[in-house]
């Protein structure tokens, strides 16, 4: 890999790994000329350091704070929607446009087939998701995964198409938010998201939603009404980003860590809140460290969930979906 992006909390680990690399290099290049006992000593030292690196790796990644998980969810090397589509499905046929205004590149989607040779599972699906870019150019093209109203309307068009042809729907959620702009407001950002919530509640085919990275507010839930809601282990999903929450409630941008803690926005948090159904485990260090393995895990889970949902009738699906979201919320009722 050319330039590995290192997050602040990963630095001690990367430094130790670099040291280990140097020692290994040292051992390889000099062992022939040195006395056997010196090489042996170096070998022992390497062994100790290896254990230390592993221990550090465990202690960092098994004790991630909420803010650190937010950082992993935004990792620039993290797999995005199209990466998952290519790794999980075959025969992907991308569809474009909302048939009203334009084709929003911040949301992609189309028919695809999920196939498992071993079990014989083969199912055409409609897969739709937010798409981020990986560099400046592609981020401008994708608008950083921030959709315009057309994106939500395109998504709805594709969902309706899936419903018409009785295909299950998979949405992959990964957005820092719906785009806040003049044109977005002119063309009804609020209406587009609201319409999706309403129509998705009524879809008569199975809908599985997966938060793969960032699930920021209305822009996320605009693709987020389904029968099963899954979250990648290091993704986040909440009503507001930690930064914006900090700026509003603390009136400063400096409380993002506290805001992330307060919002309880990680996958385990949302599982315990009863808002999501299942966590998709990630490789140690995050999905980007082993994208193929991550996609394999997600694929297995999707096949399981699809197999459970496909036998259900339209009425069962719609009723339990409405009940599912109706049960969300916590309040006190006196008297």
């Amino acid at each position: 890999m050319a330039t590995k992006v290192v997050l602040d909390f990963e630095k001690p680990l990367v430094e130790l790994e670099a040291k280990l690399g140097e020692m290994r290099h040292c051992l390889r290049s000099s062992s022939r000329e040195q006395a056997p006992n010196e090489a042996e000593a170096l070998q022992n030292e390497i062994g100790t350091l290896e254990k230390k690196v592993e221990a550090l790796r465990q202690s960092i990644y098994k004790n991630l704070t909420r803010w650190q998980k937010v950082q992993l969810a935004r990792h620039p090397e993290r797999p995005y929607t199209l990466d998952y589509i290519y790794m999980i499905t075959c025969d992907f046929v991308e569809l474009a446009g909302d048939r009203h205004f334009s084709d929003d590149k911040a949301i992609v989607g189309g028919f695809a087939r999920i196939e498992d040779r071993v079990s014989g599972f083969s199912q055409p699906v409609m897969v739709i998701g937010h798409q981020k870019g990986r560099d400046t150019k592609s981020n401008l093209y994708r608008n950083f995964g921030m959709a315009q109203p057309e994106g939500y309307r395109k998504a709805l068009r594709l969902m309706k198409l899936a419903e018409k042809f009785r295909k299950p729907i998979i949405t992959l959620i990964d957005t820092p938010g719906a785009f806040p702009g003049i044109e977005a407001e002119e063309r009804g950002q609020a209406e587009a998201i609201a319409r999706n919530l309403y129509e998705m509640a009524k879809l008569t085919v199975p809908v599985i939603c997966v938060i793969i990275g960032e699930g920021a507010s209305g822009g996320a839930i605009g693709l987020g009404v389904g029968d099963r809601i899954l979250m990648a282990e290091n993704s986040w999903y909440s009503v507001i980003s930690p930064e914006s929450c900090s700026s509003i409630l603390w009136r400063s941008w400096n409380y993002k860590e506290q805001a992330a803690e307060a919002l309880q926005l990680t996958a385990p948090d949302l599982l315990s809140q009863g808002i999501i159904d299942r966590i998709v485990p990630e490789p140690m260090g995050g999905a980007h460290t082993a994208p193929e393995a991550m996609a394999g895990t997600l694929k297995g889970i999707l096949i399981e969930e699809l197999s459970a949902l496909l036998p259900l009738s339209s009425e069962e699906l719609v009723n339990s979906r409405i009940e599912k979201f109706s049960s969300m919320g916590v309040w006190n009722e006196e008297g």
Partner: protein
Amino acid sequence: MAWFKRVTPSIRTTDKRDTPEGLWAKCDSCGAMLHKKQLEDNLFTCPQCAHHFRIAPYKYFSLLFDEGECTEFDQNLRAADPLSFTDTKHYPDRVHDTIEKSGKTEAVRNAYGKCEGADLVVSAMDFGFIGGSMGSVVGEKIARAADRAIQLDAPLLVISQSGGARMMEGAFSLMQMAKTAARLTRLGEKKLPFISLMTDPTMGGISASFAMLGDLNISEPKALIGFAGPRVIRDTIKRDLPEGFQRAEFLLEHGFVDMIVHRKELKQRLAKTLAMMRVEV
């Protein structure tokens, strides 16, 4: 029913807290000095410039229901603190202090009664309670208002007045968008009209859920309506926003509301339209 009661008398106490102190009030828009009586007679709109003062739920109840008579329901729901949320203040303290100070219990009130002789269920939001923000209680009450409308075979009117989601309830508050929208589908299935009245302000998660889903979307003049807040948009695009941006007239122009109705004409327009929307059996 024994618990049938007029809303107006019990409301006198909160009345003081909602309208400016003293006999005179200054119009926020044109600066005219208005006598309290004059303001009340005009349903809290300015006779000079038609500015609509922000009013609390019970005022809508008394102006919409015949003789102001209605039955409030689901008054006993109170905010919980599922996340033990603390910013500069504990969330339960914030709620408690707001209840103490305002005499309000949450950011929405539900009532049903007759409007021009026909049954109507109204859910009215209240900016005076933590910015009218939607947490679990607001979501549940709006969902129950939809159920009540089905039960009474009546239309539902939701009056929005909110800055958006209640951040202190995290993802629970976000889910209220999906919850309210999902429950409204059941009203739609019964062919019962859902009317959304957007007042100042109707923003964020409110406009991006039930508020934009009306069979009719009505707005009060000049109400701020939008998804993203003007400040957020300005900071993002780094240029000034056009005059009248995100105001009711802007939304009418762009096709997202059906009509802008002066408060004094609201009841009549609503009743007349609803009468035509009834499905004949």
